[in-house]
């Protein structure tokens, strides 16, 4: 993969086989049979696979590598079904000119959608090759064996895939009629295959979009307004144009940027341009201390996420509580970056981006730039971890707006640290209100839940309804974002995981979507699930205490789902959970559980914490987790995701909140938005419950909710303090301990 990535940098990626995804869609019948995964929307076999006469196999995927190993796992799936060694495969991912359109790489869907499609496509390709081999070898296909692409008949005669490969072999519509291998026969899937991209990343090979160097490349930087509402009162562009190395200074409305010969010249010109601009700075944001009360006063669109009624024992005791969380930043270590190059005649544009969705980005960008879709190519190149919708898409438009001023020249633009922190779309602040009734026997018989949140999914991809690229909002002819809409259950968005997996006879869950953009928001790992699981699992502990029961036993009392029960029991066993233990004022342990989205990976988590009552500081000493992600494709990759999610959630829970004043966002760097550091990271012990006969489930977002909730419950266990407002920073914990 590295080789092809580097070749792509130098010459523009050229593959030697015919490929026409748009044509494939046009020839699709009106009501085609539903095909598995992303095969349904990309129905040609040659959109996915190419068997080369040279012994190489090219696998095309619309999913992209965002640092979680997805492309390696997809390669394992293709190698498995084709019966070839993974080393024969070249992966091509995320290119509007080359790969299937699989939308966005998000929502832990790469295995479920992209993996399923590749599995069926590769199984069918193998069958096509075996059919040809059978004719060549004079033996029934069922009697043939394949080893690394060499097909052999019982009489010892053989022929390789590479000898059978011919142009047009896979130029046909997929039927998904060939059953993939049963899991018991897997030899590559299920193995901890090393990631394709790690050697390059630890030796300084060119692998990120930040590493691209094109002939004649210039460097861009943008100057943002000081706040969302700030208006440009005046700017002296000429003073900046005179600076050393400056090639272009761009102003379009309140969009400002510079292009320079050298990167440090662009950085200096950016500072000069910022100093040369005069802005209004109105007080347009709420007071942060009043944020959650303010959110509830805003207009909201209410949908019912779940409602059920049944006969049940009367309510003997009712509890209610309100939980809150603040805005969280993606806080990628590397600020977002893109390279854009207009053709010399300005008629077409090529953009290299670490976007999670090359096709959706192309749609929004084409509309803003007034280019036909076929004149805009977006190629994915890896970037720093994004964890959702960070600045990746915005910076691609920034780069294009600057490249437009220098036709024929590539422009590389990496945001500065404060661009990323102050302009990325945050995970929304949320309010979760819950009320539940316990029967005299201590069972939950009624559950009422309301979640208030801004939109969690404001990605590009709906150009007909509006443009979700921030720079477009600042242009002289501004675009506006689409009106946010709720994502339907069961996945949900603000109400993701708002519907508990537990069995309550009566429940009502309402989602109140706040359309106003107080701070800009969009998708961060888990969307609303982290906040909702924090609230639900905190409240389950409160109810367990009111019912006089152990938290784990109380959960099992209300949980019928057998895989959920197994995960809860496995985590309790792993951590040697002992009912009835008491915290000593500073040490405690807590439990948290969820099935991500209500339809994906199950995770239960136990954490042990230490609280410094003098400072309010919390240290997570150890974490334990049990996970069921269905069939395990790559156990090492799965562990990396589960463990990494727990560490990230500890950081969210103990440290993180985007800071702002009524004028502006003030989290601008790592001092004003601190994250968890090495000495604060606990050891994590994880057990995987493999389900070889179940579909593989995404795991990148499954452990955050349970880990956050487990910390909340551990704090209560340790100190008796039930803290319902995130984050648990020392000052807030100390103040709450003093109040309690």
């Amino acid at each position, binding site marked *: 993969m590295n080789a092809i990535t580097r070749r792509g940098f130098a010459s523009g990626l050229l593959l030697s086989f015919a490929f026409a995804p748009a044509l494939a869609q046009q020839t699709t019948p009106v009501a085609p049979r539903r095909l598995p995964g992303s095969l349904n929307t990309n129905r040609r076999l040659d959109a996915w696979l190419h068997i080369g006469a040279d012994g190489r196999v090219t696998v095309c995927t619309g999913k992209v590598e*965002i*640092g*979680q*190993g997805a492309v390696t796992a997809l390669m394992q799936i293709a190698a498995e079904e084709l019966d070839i060694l993974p080393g024969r495969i070249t992966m091509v991912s995320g290119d509007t000119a080359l790969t299937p359109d699989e939308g966005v790489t998000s929502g832990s869907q790469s295995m479920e959608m992209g993996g399923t499609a590749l599995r069926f496509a590769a199984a069918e390709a193998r069958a096509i090759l075996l059919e040809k081999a059978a004719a060549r070898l004079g033996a029934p296909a069922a009697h043939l064996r394949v080893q690394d692409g060499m097909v052999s008949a019982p009489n010892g005669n053989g022929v390789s895939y590479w000898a059978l490969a011919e142009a047009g072999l896979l130029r046909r519509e997929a039927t998904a009629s060939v059953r993939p291998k049963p899991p018991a026969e897997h030899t590559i899937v299920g193995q*901890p295959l*090393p*990631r394709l*991209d*790690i*050697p*390059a*990343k*630890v*030796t*300084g*090979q*060119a*692998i*990120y979009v*930040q*590493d691209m*160097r094109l002939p004649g490349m210039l460097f861009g930087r943008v100057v943002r307004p000081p706040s969302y509402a700030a208006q440009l009162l005046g700017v002296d562009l000429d003073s900046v144009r005179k600076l050393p190395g400056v090639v272009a200074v761009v102003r379009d409305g309140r969009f400002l940027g510079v292009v320079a010969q*050298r*990167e*440090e010249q662009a*950085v200096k010109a950016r500072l000069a341009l910022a100093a040369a601009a005069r802005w209004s700075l109105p007080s347009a944001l709420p007071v942060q201390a009043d944020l959650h009360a303010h959110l509830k006063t805003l207009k909201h669109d209410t949908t019912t996420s779940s409602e059920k009624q049944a006969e049940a024992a009367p309510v003997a005791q009712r509890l209610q509580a309100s939980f809150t969380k603040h805005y969280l930043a993606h*806080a*990628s*270590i*590397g*600020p977002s970056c893109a390279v854009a190059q207009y053709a010399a005649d300005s008629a077409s544009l090529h953009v290299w981006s670490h976007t999670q969705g090359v096709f959706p980005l192309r749609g929004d960008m084409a509309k803003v730039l007034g280019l036909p879709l076929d004149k805009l190519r977006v190629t994915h190149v*890896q*970037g*720093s*971890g994004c*964890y959702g919708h960070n600045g990746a898409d915005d910076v691609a438009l920034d780069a294009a707006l600057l490249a437009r001023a220098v036709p024929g020249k590539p422009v590389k633009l*990496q945001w*500065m*640290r404060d661009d990323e922190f102050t302009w990325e779309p945050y995970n929304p602040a949320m309010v979760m209100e819950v009320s539940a009734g316990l029967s005299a026997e201590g069972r939950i018989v009624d559950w009422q839940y309301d979640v208030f949140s801004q939109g969690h999914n404001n990605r590009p991809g709906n150009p007909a309804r509006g443009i979700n690229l921030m720079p477009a909002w600042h242009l002289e002819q501004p675009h506006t974002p689409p009106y946010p809409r709720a994502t339907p259950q069961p996945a949900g968005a603000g109400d993701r995981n708002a519907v508990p997996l537990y069995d309550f006879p009566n429940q009502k869950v309402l989602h109140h979507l706040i359309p106003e953009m107080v701070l800009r928001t969009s998708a961060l790992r888990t969307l609303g699930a982290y906040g909702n699981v924090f609230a639900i699992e905190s409240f389950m502990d409160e109810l367990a205490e009111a019912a006089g029961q152990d938290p784990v036993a109380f959960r099992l009392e209300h949980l019928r789902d057998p895989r959920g029960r197994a995960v809860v029991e496995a985590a309790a066993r792993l951590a040697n959970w002992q009912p009835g233990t008491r915290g000593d004022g500073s040490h405690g342990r807590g439990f948290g559980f969820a099935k991500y989205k209500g339809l994906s990976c199950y995770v239960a988590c136990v954490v042990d914490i230490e609280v410094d009552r003098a400072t309010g500081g919390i240290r997570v000493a150890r974490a334990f987790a049990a996970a069921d992600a269905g069939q395990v494709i790559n156990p*090492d*990759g799965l562990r*990396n995701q589960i*463990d*990494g*999610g*727990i*560490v*990230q959630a500890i*950081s969210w829970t103990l440290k993180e909140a985007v800071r702002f004043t009524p004028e502006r966002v003030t989290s601008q*760097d*790592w*001092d004003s938005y601190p*994250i*968890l*550091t*090495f*000495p604060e*990271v606990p*050891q*994590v012990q994880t057990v995987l419950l493999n389900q070889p006969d179940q579909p593989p489930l995404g795991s990148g977002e499954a452990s955050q909710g349970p880990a956050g909730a487990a910390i909340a419950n551990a704090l209560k266990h340790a100190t008796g303090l039930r803290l319902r407002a995130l984050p648990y920073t020392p000052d807030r914990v100390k103040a709450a301990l003093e109040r309690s």
Partner: protein
Amino acid sequence: MAAITLTVNGSSRQVEAEADTPLLYVLRNDLELNGPRFGCGLGQCGSCTVLVEGQPTRSCITEVGAVAGRSITTLEGLGTPDRLHALQRAFIAEQAAQCGYCANGMIMAAKALLDSHPEPSEPEIRDALASYLCRCGTHNRIVAAVQRAVREG
């Protein structure tokens, strides 16, 4: 612009740049090295770390003029894909990366640590990496990789 001579990964290199240019940009853009990465430009995150005379140094806030003539080592100077340094080998063996953007700083900081403390304890490794930020939550694998490098040298 001035001609500045640098010693990078054992070779003498001449570049044309203003003396106040951050070393990071010279390494990345003039010398086409990818190891040191721009993370914050503020010396806070550690992604841009190189060794100057063996000392871990944030190249994003180090002026190139200040290191003229001094010995600079980047990630590329430790080893190549064909001849990996023990730390690089250990990072691969432990699969100690998700996005990998921070890996440069982790490996360079670990190199400096092991050069001065060949057998650090786990808390010493965590303390040495305390000012190097990772967002993917890969910390424990990074610590394990440093421990493996100590073991396997």
